[in-house]
């Protein structure tokens, strides 16, 4: 019972706060700007050369206002927005009218989820193992080399790094396709031909996420481990004549992984943003590319839908990681 009250409940409350703050920002900030989205869409249509008489413009304005949920006062709109959100209704896409935004998101979501989950798990495991070992054996030449490499890679933004990989391995040395999630005309199905095609197309986007993820995990893990190594119990283990590898894996890295689980929960939002950007660079058919298309066509409804859902999704994923944590940390389980 104490576990639920002390550990579970605060995390669930925090999840609700994140969703509340996030959705409130998503709702209010665009409305606080002087720009009127309805007017923007209308001027966009008229600037494309289409002639419209004033009556038609008025009718369009009316229907757009209704569509955006811009009727009534600010708070009325706000509650209406929550109501639609709970039903999962973000209205129709403006540029693929009348397909609902939700349907478009559902087509792209599996791509992003697949890419994100695979790369995050791979880079978390490899990055922490390498970082832990490099922190423990920090005077070895390989540890220093790894340290220098990740020190340079760590601060590079996702876009720049993906662009460099794209130029290198799709244009200069064209071994990987430069765009898309699968070859044009290939039918989606559960067979080897499709899966291998999918893997080849996903390789570069996955690589850029994995390499940057490893560098980030490496740097923090090395710092954590270099603090643990100075602890008394490690000294004692060394004095007791335990094997170096046993100390490194069972005593040092195992303990260092715990803060890294919390670190993962806190950085999920950033990793997600990185995945969106990487998808855009490689035109990978996930949420990022969907969002990019929406930016270019001014599809305000679609941007709103993707943003709201990512707030809820990331908050949920963070909660999930927090809930998994007690499985690894007996101190919390048996409190």
């Amino acid at each position: 019972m104490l576990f639920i009250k002390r550990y579970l409940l605060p995390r669930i409350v925090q999840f609700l706060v994140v969703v509340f703050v996030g959705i409130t920002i998503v709702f209010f900030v665009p409305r606080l700007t002087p720009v009127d989205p309805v007017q923007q869409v209308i001027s966009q249509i008229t600037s494309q050369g289409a002639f419209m008489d004033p009556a038609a413009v008025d009718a369009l304005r009316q229907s757009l206002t209704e569509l955006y949920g811009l009727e009534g006062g600010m708070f009325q709109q706000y509650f209406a927005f929550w109501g639609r959100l709970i039903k999962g209704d973000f209205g129709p896409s403006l540029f693929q009218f009348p397909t609902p935004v939700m349907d478009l998101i559902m087509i792209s979501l599996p791509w992003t989820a697949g890419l994100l989950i695979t790369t995050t798990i791979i880079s978390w495991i490899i990055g922490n193992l390498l970082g832990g070992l490099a922190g423990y054996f920090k005077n070895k030449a390989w540890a220093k080399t790894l340290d220098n490499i990740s020190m340079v890679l760590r601060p590079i933004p996702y876009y720049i790094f993906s662009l460099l990989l794209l130029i290198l391995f799709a244009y200069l040395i064209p071994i990987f396709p430069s765009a898309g999630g699968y070859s044009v005309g290939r039918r989606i199905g559960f067979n080897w031909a499709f899966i291998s095609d999918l893997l080849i197309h996903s390789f570069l986007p996955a690589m850029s996420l994995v390499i940057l993820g490893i560098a980030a995990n490496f740097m923090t893990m090395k710092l954590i481990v270099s603090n643990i190594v100075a602890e008394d119990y490690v000294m004692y283990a060394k004095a007791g004549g335990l094997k170096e590898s046993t100390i490194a894996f069972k005593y040092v890295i195992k303990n260092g992984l715990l803060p890294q689980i919390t670190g993962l929960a806190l950085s999920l939002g950033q990793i997600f943003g990185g995945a969106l950007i990487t998808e855009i660079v490689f035109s990978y058919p996930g949420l990022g590319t969907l969002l990019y298309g929406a930016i270019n066509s001014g599809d305000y409804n679609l941007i709103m839908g993707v943003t709201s859902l990512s707030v809820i999704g990331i908050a949920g994923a963070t909660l999930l990681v927090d809930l998994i944590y007690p499985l690894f940390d007996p101190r919390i389980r048996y409190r």
Partner: protein
Amino acid sequence: MLEAFKELMKDGRFKFAFIVICVLAFMSILSFFSPYDPLRWNVVPRDRPPSWPHIFGTTSQGQDLFWQSTFAIRNSLTIALIASGISRVIAIIVGLVSGYKGGTVDTVLMSINDSFVVMPLLPILILIASVIRENLNMVTLGIILSLFGWAWDARVIRSQILSLREREFTYTAILSGTKTFNLVVKEYFPFIIPIIFATLINNMIWATGMEVTLAILGLSNTEIPTIGTMIHWAVNYQSILLGYWWWILTPVIISVFLFVALYLLSTSLSEYLDPRTRIQRIGKAKE
């Protein structure tokens, strides 16, 4: 101060970062003496590879890449400084109030604070930028970035204040009648200033990264030359496909140097400020 600088220059990472930052700062000062207007097109011959007098080459828009990048560095750094400057103020206020007051105030503030840490900021910034778009000048972009970039550092400052509050001198000061404001400014600030400085650089990396990303997506005013808008135009004009490597590589390489230099500066500084590693260093010097 000079002593600290000498000590820091012994660190290879700091030396490299310092030199790179100096070169970039020098380039951004050079922009004031540019022979070309950065906003005008077709002032030089188009699509020339690097050669004298256009040492970085020219673009398909007829702009000189070297002089264009001097403006880009200056503008990107300005946006980063506005963003991280304002967000420092927010972070200090939230961190101080939360750490010093404690109790319910702390719980509520930290709950909001953690929301900003966890939230996926990129899609939210994309939403905001896509609404404002063309009206997004350097100052507004800086302010918007600052409103989202304070949370992590507020937590760092708060934890420092929490430990300071339990120190002996706090009780001495309170019992001898020091006002809270004076206590915080006179006694606590000397402890927080190094943290503020270290987090400032980290925040500049974040803000520049966000600026570059938004600009590449075409979500800021693409007329103003920044590192991001330079990449945006190079990608938009298909410079990779057409083989104008100098156009895309100039902003990419400059940004890589900028990010790596800022990061090395922040790691070497925070290692220098960390008392634990300082003891190790002194120990090493004596051996």
